[in-house]
Structures are given as C-alpha cells and as structure tokens.
C-alpha cells in the first residue's frame, strides 16, 4: 500500500512539473501516465475529465483527487493531490524569495517559446485521439481501419461541435450536460 501511495505521489509530481499553461495542458500528461500504468482505461479517464471539468476548483486538483481516491481511497487522494501541488509550491516560493525577474529570464523565455507550441500540438493530438475513440471507437490511430460508423455518435458530435462553433467560449459544464443528455436520449431512449 505504501508503495502504491508513493507511486501516486511521484506520478502526479511528474505531471505537476511538466504542466505548463492551465488544466488542458495537463490532460495529455495524465492520459500518458495513468493509462500506461493501467490505472484507468481511456474511457473511464475521459469520464473523470468530464466530472473534473464540471466541478468547482482547479482542474488539476479535481483530477488528481479523483484518480487518487479511485486507486487508494482518501489517503490515495491526498498523496496524488499533494504530488500535483508540491512542485508548483516549491518553485513559486523559490521564485518569490530569490528570483523575482523569473519571467524575464532569457532561458525561461526560450524554453517556453519552444514548449508552448509543442504543447499545443500535443493537446490537439490528444483531442483528436479522444474524438476518434469516442465517435468511431478507434482504440489507437494505427487501428484506424477498424473504425465503426455509428450515426448516433456522429449526430452528437455534429450538434455539440456545431454549437461550440456558433457560440464560442461556451461553458464546459454546458457542453458536458448537453452531450450527456444527447447520449442518454440517443442510446437510452431511441
């Protein structure tokens, strides 16, 4: 049990160290680490992401608490959440104490100039991967020929995606509730 708790802490510590630019930048890291360790399947992880996006508070805390709790109960939730908090906490205190001009440092600027576009590409790739798996039931891009055409998932995609293009910056909760409702109607009732 102790080993599992340490593993949760270390995994989320790593995720905390490499997350630049808000909650969505964390999703590729979480997907990578958590699925590779067999803690979640892609589907259950996406379910957690939906819940973490629809509850108050920082996404990072929500998702680490959720996965930690699911693995090892409340203690697991504490270790995972602490893991994601500690890197930020330590780095910010060092900056606040000795390095106030951190954001102007040329190496920091250089690192971010390179890391930011690559993170955009990574998030985009995860988004496409999630789309392929939720709409066409493709587990990996290399298995693209095994795609399944289901008019129901395609209809949900078209409605929700269309709406986000008509009105930008729609609240994530609204998207989650709407797509859940559509899923329930199309799969449960029709």
């Amino acid at each position, binding site marked *: 049990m102790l080993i599992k708790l340490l593993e949760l802490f270390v995994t989320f510590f790593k995720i905390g160290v490499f997350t630049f630019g808000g909650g969505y930048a964390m999703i590729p890291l979480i997907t990578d680490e958590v699925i590779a360790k067999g803690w979640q399947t892609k589907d259950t992880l996406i379910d957690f992401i939906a819940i*973490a996006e629809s509850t108050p*508070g920082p996404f990072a805390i929500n998702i680490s608490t959720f996965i930690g709790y699911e693995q090892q109960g409340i203690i697991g939730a504490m270790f995972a959440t602490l893991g994601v908090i500690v890197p*930020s906490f330590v780095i910010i*205190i060092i900056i606040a104490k000795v390095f106030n001009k951190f954001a102007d440092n040329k190496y920091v600027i250089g690192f971010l100039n390179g890391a930011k576009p*690559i993170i955009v590409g990574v998030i985009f790739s995860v988004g*496409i991967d*999630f789309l392929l798996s939720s709409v066409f039931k493709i587990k990996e891009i290399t298995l693209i020929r095994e795609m399944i055409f289901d008019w129901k998932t395609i209809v949900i995609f078209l409605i929700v995606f269309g709406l986000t293009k008509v009105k930008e910056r729609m609240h994530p909760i609204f998207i989650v509730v709407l797509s859940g409702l559509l899923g329930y109607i199309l799969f449960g009732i029709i």
Partner: protein
Amino acid sequence: MYFKLFWTFFKIGLFTFGGGYAMIPFIHKFGVDKYQWITEQEFMNIIAIAESTPGPIAINSATYIGHKVKGVRGSAAATLGVSLPSFIIIILIAAFFMQFKDNMHVEYAFQGIRIGVAILVVNAAVRMYRKLDKNYMSYILIAIGFGLLLFDFLSVIYVIIVGGGIGIITQILKARGEENVD
C-alpha cells in the same frame, strides 16, 4: 491573518468553475481591491510567473500571494485554502460516482459526454493556438508535438523537453546572431 488567507482562497476555490484562468478575476478582486495584499503591478507579475512556471495557475498564484503576505506559512494557508474545496467535493462525487458507474443509464449519458470532452479538448487546443506567436518555428513545433504523440513515439514529458530544448537553443543562437551584428 493565516485564517484570512485560508478562508479567502477557500472561497476562490469553491466558487470558480472552469479552472485556473476563471480564478484570475477573483484573485484580483480579493488580492488587489479588497485586502490590498498585492499591488496591481505585482498582480501582473504573478500572472506572468504563473504562466511561465509549471503547475496549476491557482496553486501558483495562491502560493505567491500567501508568501507575499505571510511567508512560507502564508503560502501553505492560501494553497490549502484553494485546494480544499475541490478535494472535498471530488471525494464526495467520486464516492457517489463509483456506485453508479456501471449503471446502464449512466453509461448511455457518458457515451455522449466522452464526445463532449473530446470537443472541449480540441477547442482548447485551437484557443491556445490562437494565442501563440506564429512563425515558421511554431508551426514546425506544433506539427512535431502532434505527430510524436499521435503515433505514440515519445511520452508527453519527453516531447515537452524536446520543445523546450529547441526553444532554448534557438534563443541562444538568436542572441549570438545579434552579437555578431553588433
């Protein structure tokens, strides 16, 4: 004072939906306007630091403001405050969700929700893309990040290190180039 820091950030954590960026106006309202813990200039500085350091923006700004007001213990109070509401709410939801996740009706809804989440992630990538400085290098890096991950060549952490490394090298080369011109 520790309790005031804790309680203020507890409220910020409780009432912000939609992640760290949604928190920024609240941090301004309490930190700058109401309690004057930080100046307008420091607030801007915090946002710049939060965006250039790893980790959740909420934790970064809570730690920074807490430190400004009451040192490391102030940081701990503010960070605990901003994290605790999420922690409690998620544990309640997780306990509840675990009982229903195998329910057929819940699964129907989640078949739709997974598509919604995928759309949220794609749209987030598009939004972040719009904020980038566009030049040939950023296009190449986006393509590298996209391709490396889509075909599972490298884990995300290494992909980010590759990007940051390329960025630092470019920065150094650019600085050398400017020196030579002088």
